[in-house]
């Protein structure tokens, strides 16, 4: 508070007049683009609010969206009840609460889940050497893998992805496209095929329904056979 009335006004006016002549900070966006690194997504930093607490609400959206899964995080959920985590489960010693996991969008672990049996990946190295680690020969690699293991174990696919540099999703897509490639041992596939073969045909259900209901079931349309 100055003793001279109006000095503050004069100072403010002088400031804006000075700004009037200063160089401008606008970036003419569609024409000029700032040179940012490839894959730049802004700064990864947790911000604090004015009371000094973290602004992060542990919503896991950043971790979920992270394309290379470099974010793993933990914290307390919004009601302060559970410690919740995102990332490799080995990282965290605490018990993971099912509700917190469900809220976080992660798949909730199934108690009936049995992990894959360990697969010896030694045979893969020879196969990949033979095809020069070239993803262009993916079909041949996959066929050789199936010949070696009898089926395509997920661990083998991941290893192939790791060593050839091809995306896992692409390898998986290739493997699912060809009907002679399978993800389970031949006997399991045969069992599933047998179950499918013994399922009654679709028309049988409709015929049974017709028999039970008389002719009252949707008389406008001819019953499908």
């Amino acid at each position: 508070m100055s003793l001279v009335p109006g000095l503050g006004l004069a100072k403010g006016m002088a400031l804006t007049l000075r700004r009037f002549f200063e160089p401008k900070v606008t970036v003419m966006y569609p024409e000029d683009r700032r040179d940012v690194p490839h894959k730049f997504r802004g700064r990864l930093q947790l911000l604090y609010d004015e009371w000094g607490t973290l602004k992060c609400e542990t919503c896991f959206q950043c971790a979920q969206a992270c394309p290379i899964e470099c974010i793993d995080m933990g914290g307390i959920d919004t009601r302060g009840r559970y410690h919740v985590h995102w990332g490799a489960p080995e990282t965290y010693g605490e018990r993971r609460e099912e509700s917190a996991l469900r809220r976080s969008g992660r798949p909730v672990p199934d108690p009936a889940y049995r992990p894959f049996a360990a697969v010896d990946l030694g045979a893969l190295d020879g196969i990949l050497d033979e095809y020069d680690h070239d993803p262009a020969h993916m079909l041949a690699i996959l066929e050789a893998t199936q010949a070696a293991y009898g089926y395509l174990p997920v661990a083998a696919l991941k290893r192939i992805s790791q060593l050839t540099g091809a995306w896992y999703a692409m390898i998986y897509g290739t493997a699912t496209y060809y009907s002679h490639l399978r993800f389970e041992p031949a006997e399991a596939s045969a069992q599933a095929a047998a179950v499918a073969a013994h399922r009654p045909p679709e028309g049988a259900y409709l015929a049974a329904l017709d028999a039970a209901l008389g002719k009252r079931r949707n008389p406008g349309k001819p019953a499908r056979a």
Partner: protein
Amino acid sequence: MTVVGKSWSRLTLPGKIIFTVVPLLLVTTFVAVSAIVLLGPTIIDILAANLPIVRFVVAVTIVLLMTIPTAFLIIYMEMKVIALMNLRIGPDRVGPFGSLLSVVHGLKVLMKEDFTPTGADPIVFTWAPVVTYLASVMTLLVIPFAPGIFGQDLNLALLYFFAIGGLSVVGLLMAGWSSYNKYSLLGGLRSAAQVISYEIPLTLSVVGLILLAGTMSLNKIVEQQSGWFTDWYVFQQPLAVLIFFIAATAEANRTPFDLTEADSEIVAGFATEYSGMRFGFFFFAEYVNVFIISALTVTLFFGGWNAPFPWPWPVTLDLDPGSLGILLLILVAIVPLILTIVFAAPVWMISARIKGWQALIVGFILANLFIVAVIFGLAYVGLDWVAGIFWFLGKTYVFVFTFVWMRGTLPRVRIDQLMDFAWKWLLPASLLNLFVTAAAIVVARSVRP
């Protein structure tokens, strides 16, 4: 098919257009020329007999038309200047440096739906912006732009100005009252309270000047300030200038007193229910008001159309282009060419990378600028109204810039601060100014009658 029809069908599209438009033009021209020749003297006689009416009609038309580019210019200025003060670039897409943006704004407003809310009083609702707008525009009629360039030389011009300018409150009240919206009504009443409160110091601050000048005619007030800039009334009435400027800011609803439509707090106050061109008229009125207030400040206190210094050497232009005869035509044909080449040559010689045609284009532009400058200089020296308009508009836009500058700087006051300031500070100050001026005049007259 007749011969005419056959020939018509053989014409191409441009041919069809030319064959219809050219005869139409010929006939129209013939009719117009013959009408002017036959009826012209009579019309001129009638007009000459009713010169005051003609002058009035012409002045009103010009003033109405003048407000549109003025408002566009000030709106553009506001956008650009505030942007530059905010370290932004501001409008730069439409036209050179974005200067046509306000025109596009105007077109946008014209195309918007003209909406009248259910329950609103349609007649009052429609006329409210007209009243506000006309109250602003009509005050322009008495402002002297230059010697001889004014609507009417009223001997009560100042009184007329405040009387008509005060009518804009009626428009605001009408808008608030007829909107069928209690917040609009509150906004209208608030604006009315503000504008009427500031009307008093505004008018009182000028009374001292009227005592000094001895007249209310704006023309005479301007003429009294001719000569050096020390003759301007700002040096005899500094307090009055301050009060007048502050009160005028509030009167024109400008920052820091723009409570009537405080953009960031209330939704446009009295104009909440307005849309389209009806809102546009309020908007226009605000910017015309800025121009008018600046113009009146210049007229009353800053010498109006007088240059700040008398032209130091007397110039009498004794040009008689007619005496050149046929040489005039040759000069008109040749001088632009010569000038273009004269200006293009140094540009061409600057660098080997500048091609001949590029240099010629630059030379052409420079030559045109030169010619315009020469013509303006001759007009400034030879015609006193050109000089007058130059100085008047120059000074006025300095004040317009100040208004914009204030809007870019000052925060808005509260409504109680606003009222306090008007009644507790400006009113006593203007009364003090009046008494001191009156006393000074009495003393001066008794000392040196």
